[in-house]
């Protein structure tokens, strides 16, 4: 097997906040082969965005930030590169789609300019060639009348249309890895599916590896090869998306799956919600961080941190736990 496109090795991102140090990403390891798709799922505040931005290299070591571990893209460690080296990768090897299309476009720039600028910068295209390519890209992401749209300003476009432009921007220089951080959270439900389908088909067509970040397992199912479930800065379970769905082993994954609304359920049946609050990341619980909310927690859970063994970080993975409690 060839070396993976992306290798994340024991990545930790620590912020110095006014209220004390906070480890937002706590020892995450991932690999992703070329063309593969990975979903990252977890509650709000579990560190998904910080993980995405640290992988991207947008969050690096600084006065209030410490990053340890390694992120290797095609063998090059993003966090060991110079700022120039990182800039050369951004857009061409690894690109990002942000959550809110309302704010990720510059209100004073035309749609076409958003696209042609990075083409001219990275690819050295002429003004005319960049314009032609920009229109092609708009067509690629399914924007009707691309020539006319290229001359418009972001506020003249609908939310879904804008997110398509943001995706086109990310794709402009053929990245090998695309990180999409909740690309549909800010959109209408009907538009969400279109955008996700678009991302999926583009990833297949362009043979692009994708990391799809979402707080909703339903978004990720059926669209990703593998999934990693995050809780309080750590990956608590990972595996083939199909397997995790069919047979979740971590109690948190199980609870997440049970809380997905189902079409076949009675329309008024209550969704089983996960009880309790997400942990305070400034002062996380000792032992298993899910223990205060876990239905299967035992004394051992509160003192001993479960390691990620066989892709699950739990002392009593579900099948086994069910036997114990049965």
């Amino acid at each position: 097997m060839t070396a993976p496109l992306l290798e994340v090795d024991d990545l930790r991102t620590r912020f110095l906040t006014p209220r004390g140090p906070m480890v937002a990403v706590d020892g995450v390891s991932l690999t992703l082969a070329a063309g593969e798709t990975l979903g990252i799922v977890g509650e709000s505040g579990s560190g998904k965005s910080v993980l995405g931005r640290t992988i991207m290299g947008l969050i690096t070591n600084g006065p209030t930030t410490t990053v340890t571990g390694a992120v290797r893209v095609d063998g090059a460690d993003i966090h060991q590169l110079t700022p120039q080296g990182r800039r050369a990768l951004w857009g061409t090897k690894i690109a990002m789609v942000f959550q809110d299309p309302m704010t990720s476009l510059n209100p004073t720039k035309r749609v076409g300019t958003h696209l042609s600028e990075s083409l001219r910068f990275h690819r050295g295209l002429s003004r005319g060639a960049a314009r032609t390519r920009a229109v092609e890209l708009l067509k690629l992401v399914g924007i009707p009348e691309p020539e006319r749209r290229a001359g418009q300003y972001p506020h003249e476009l609908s939310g879904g249309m804008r997110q398509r432009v943001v995706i086109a921007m990310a794709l402009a220089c053929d990245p090998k890895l695309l990180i999409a951080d909740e690309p549909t959270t800010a959109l209408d439900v009907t538009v969400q599916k279109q955008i996700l389908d678009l991302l999926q088909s583009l990833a297949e067509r362009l043979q692009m590896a994708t990391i799809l970040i979402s707080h909703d397992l339903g978004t990720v199912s059926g669209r990703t090869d593998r999934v990693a479930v995050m809780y309080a800065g750590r990956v608590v379970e990972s595996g083939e998306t199909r397997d995790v769905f069919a047979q979740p082993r971590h109690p948190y994954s199980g609870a997440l799956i049970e809380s997905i609304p189902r079409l076949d359920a009675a329309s008024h049946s209550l969704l089983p919600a996960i009880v309790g609050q997400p942990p305070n990341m400034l002062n996380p619980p000792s032992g298993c961080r899910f223990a205060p909310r876990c239905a299967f927690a035992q004394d051992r859970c509160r003192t001993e941190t479960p390691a990620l063994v066989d892709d699950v970080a739990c002392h009593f993975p579900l099948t086994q736990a069910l036997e114990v409690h049965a």
Partner: protein
Amino acid sequence: MSETALLPAAPEAPAVPAARGRSARVLVLSIAGLVASVAMILLSASPDYFVTTLRLVVAAAGVALMVVSGSALGRQLFGPAFDLSFWFSVAWLLLLGLAVTFAPWLPFGEHLDVANSLDQPINASPDPFSANPLGTNLFGLDLLARSVYGARSSLVIAVTAVVIGTVIGGAIGMVAGYFQKSVDRVVGIFTNSLLAVPPLILLIALATVLEPRIRNIAFALSLLTIPGMVRLARATTMLYAPREFVVAARALGATRVRILFRELLPNVLLPIVSLAIVMISILIVAEASLSFLGLGIEPPEPTWGNMIAEGEGTVFEDHPHIVLVPGTFLFLTVFAFNLVGEKARRRWDPRSVKL
């Protein structure tokens, strides 16, 4: 005339039909009103026809008629949102700009050289139908010509000072707002110390060491505009810098210089330009005050300030037009810049920018 065109909407029926068809009657009446108002103002300005009190009444009536028929005409032609004072301001600034640009080729009386005005009446009152439509001063120099040439120095000084202040202040403010930290602290100390010096004292101090030439006065006045520009540019930059489009540009490989120029500058520009327009009006007044105090451009070279200063002593009582003519120019211009700047600011207020 359809009454609703002139009457304010009754409170119980606030929705005046917005899109009324053009009524030919209103059109004709308002144009006639405009013509009549111009005639009334011209007549009242001429000493030959009425006694002083009546002249004032006719002039006031003329202005009122002009406002009423002007807005009626504007609403007819450009829809109910027509803003007369804004377009009046734009028209005044355009007219003044044209007069200033083409002054040497316009049939004005003598504005500078007393030797050429020996045959002219002195302290002549305004008479629109004479060779000196706005009258003459103590030396027989033509007040219309002097007001236009005075506008030249006033506008050149004010605009130059604002441009210098905007470029320098805007650049400093953007850099401070973008890089923050120690850069921002240094800039903060710089702007606060500039603000701590009372502007008039700063100007008088500079005026005593610098020769009163257009360039020097513009430089001195630009110091007044810098702190305000720094603050606005800094605040606007800080508003936009954390927006996702800046991160997105970075994530596509844009350098910091590129982000400053291509992402932030266009967003900072609009509010800055609006403030700059308002500042022009402030600097026109500041320049006039300096000239009035004898610290600016020296007579006989005209500026509005030193023209107003010619009314010192009993001159104003005997010949009010010596002060009123340049005073009106000053007032109208300041008013116009303020109004246009305010309108621009409301339109481009960073807080109300729609995304």
